């Protein structure tokens, strides 16, 4: 695993607390990464258009479009982005939707453990 | 002086309830005779083994999740018989047929925190096949309230069938708890004349409006109004004094009067009114409190309608 290139991560969650938690956990492991925030699916799509990130962590339930729908749109155009769906919706249907998109599903709460799972997905080759 | 462990163990084995205690690693620590009776697996065979591996059949995910939650978070969990008929492979071996019958169960899991060894869980199992008894039906009779089968389709309030059931329960409750009971019989004055003049459709609308007006005067969960038949309604109001019940009757009478539904075919008033017969008091088994309310209603009609007449449960001279 190389950390020599500073990667860019986009965190999409309508909860500020949740975004802060994810950011804190990531910074603890990868202080050199550039981290961007979006608080809705729509905002995340717009941000990706300005400059696609390497990785994305996406919540599902947000005002506006569902995170999974936003993820689908983003991955259609930028299939190389590594996507993690991080949600409190832990029912089977959401997990399989995430997997069908080529994203990994990780259950909330945000913790060292759940973020480690997300980082694993980022670093395994496609 | 603390009770010796042997006595405690005897107690656990004597009670008519299944008891299983598991430690934080899901190992069985204790298993009472009731569980043996319904599994034919001895405690010594189960002790020290993971609960999931003790039975010859796998345990359902719901049970295992509940156990995990109780051990992990220390929150008590119930698994109702309503939603899971038979989570554990427990059987009634005493049944006459050769086939062993799986028993219906209700399960409660509670955390135990012994001095050492992490959190434990005590699993209590009751046989629901036998526990569903009349007492339970009585307890939950208030839930009958929602059912279509007990609703009068025209007025939306309870029907006669519900009333008959509820009356029995309320009557016996009042006797047992030594509380007053009030029965109010309500009749729309000159309703036949109304139907003749305005037609049955208007008659139905008026029945609905009167039912709603009466119902809107009741605020306690324990108060019940039902359609008794035709243009007659009946109310049961527990635990009110005679004075309070008369006040309610007055409010009911006014609520219908204030609807100001025109009734040109009424010999007395130009609008729809009601008469009310009230019987109130501390009931005894032999009292015919419905009959008294009916008698009171008759008096109210006789005395000019649009009024309430109250009668005690017994005449003075009969006491």
């Amino acid at each position, binding site marked *: 695993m190389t950390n020599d290139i500073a990667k860019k991560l986009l965190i999409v969650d309508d909860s500020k607390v949740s975004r*802060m938690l994810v950011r804190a956990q990531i910074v603890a492991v990868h202080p050199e990464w550039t981290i961007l925030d979006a608080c809705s699916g729509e905002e995340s799509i717009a941000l990706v258009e300005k400059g696609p990130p390497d990785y994305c962590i996406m919540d599902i339930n947000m005002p506006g479009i569902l995170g999974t729908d936003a993820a689908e749109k983003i991955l259609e155009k930028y299939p190389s982005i590594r996507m993690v769906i991080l949600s409190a919706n832990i029912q089977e249907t959401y997990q399989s939707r995430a997997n069908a998109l080529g994203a990994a599903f990780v259950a909330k709460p945000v913790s060292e453990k759940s973020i480690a799972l997300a980082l694993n997905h980022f670093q395994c080759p496609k | 002086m603390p009770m010796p462990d042997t006595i405690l163990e005897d107690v656990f084995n004597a009670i008519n309830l299944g008891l299983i205690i598991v430690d934080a690693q899901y190992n069985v620590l204790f298993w009472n005779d009731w569980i043996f009776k319904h599994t034919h697996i001895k405690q010594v065979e189960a002790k020290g083994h993971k609960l999931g591996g003790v039975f010859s059949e796998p345990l359902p995910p*719901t049970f295992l999740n509940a156990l995990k939650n109780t051990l992990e978070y220390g929150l008590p969990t119930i698994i*109702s018989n309503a939603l899971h008929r038979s989570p554990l492979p427990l059987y009634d071996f005493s049944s006459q047929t050769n086939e062993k019958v799986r028993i219906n169960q209700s399960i409660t899991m509670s955390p135990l925190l012994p001095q050492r060894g992490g959190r434990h869980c005590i699993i209590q199992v009751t046989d629901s096949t036998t526990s569903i008894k009349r007492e339970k039906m009585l307890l*939950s009779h208030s839930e009958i309230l929602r059912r279509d089968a007990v609703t009068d389709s025209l007025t939306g309030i309870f029907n006669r069938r519900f009333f008959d059931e509820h009356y029995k329960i309320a009557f016996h409750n009042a006797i047992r708890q030594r509380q007053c009971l009030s029965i109010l019989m309500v009749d729309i004055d000159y309703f036949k004349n109304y139907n003749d003049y305005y037609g049955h459709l208007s008659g139905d609308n008026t029945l609905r409006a009167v039912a709603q007006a009466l119902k809107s005067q009741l605020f306690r969960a324990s108060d019940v109004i039902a359609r008794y038949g035709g243009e007659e309604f009946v109310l049961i109001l527990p635990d009110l004094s005679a004075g309070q019940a008369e006040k309610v009757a007055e409010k009911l009478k006014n609520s219908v009067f204030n609807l100001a539904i025109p009734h040109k075919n009424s010999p007395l008033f130009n609008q729809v009114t009601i008469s009310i017969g009230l019987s109130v008091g501390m009931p005894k088994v032999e009292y015919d409190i419905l009959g008294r309310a009916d008698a009171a209603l008759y008096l109210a009609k006789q005395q000019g309608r649009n009024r309430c007449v109250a009668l005690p449960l017994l005449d003075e001279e009969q006491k």
Partner: protein
Amino acid sequence: MNLLSEMQRDALAEVFNIGAGRAALSISEIVGDEVKLSVPSIEVKKSVEIGVETLPLNNERFGTVHQNFTGPFEATAMLLFSEEKALEIVRDMMGSQMSLEELVEFEQEAMCELGNIILNACLSAMADILGISLNSTLPCYTIASCTELLHTITSSMDQDYVLVLNIVFTSVKRESEGQLILLLSSASLTNLIRHIDHFLGGI
């Protein structure tokens, strides 16, 4: 009057969203169908301010499940179902093959379990996120009228504040939607808020 800061409310929303997600998973396993639980609003109210209009269920009667819990703070968690919704949910959960008689027998138990699932899921999420441990009594199911309920809430003078959560319950296949209210009343709500601040400070 609002007693929570935006961040505190956000943190609580996250706690209860995770709780709702866990409860939805358990319930979906029972009904064999997807269900959604969402928490659209969270408010802290003084218990004396709780009135009919606070409870956004326009029902005369409620089914309630409550559990008392102790730990870093003591509280009563009470889940309110509107009456018809309660029955609908139970019918859903038990399958429609139930006879009337059976429904009467089982409803109380089923509601108790449903309440237990939702309350435990919320409490476990709170335990995980805030790093606390709570003890709880077993759930208890009662039917109460709105007036009786308000009386219970406002008469317990030792419980000054009430946390009011709206929970929307949606059964995806049946397209039915129900609303539940979670009331968390506690004299020591300040202790809960302290734990939230502690958690926020640790980020």
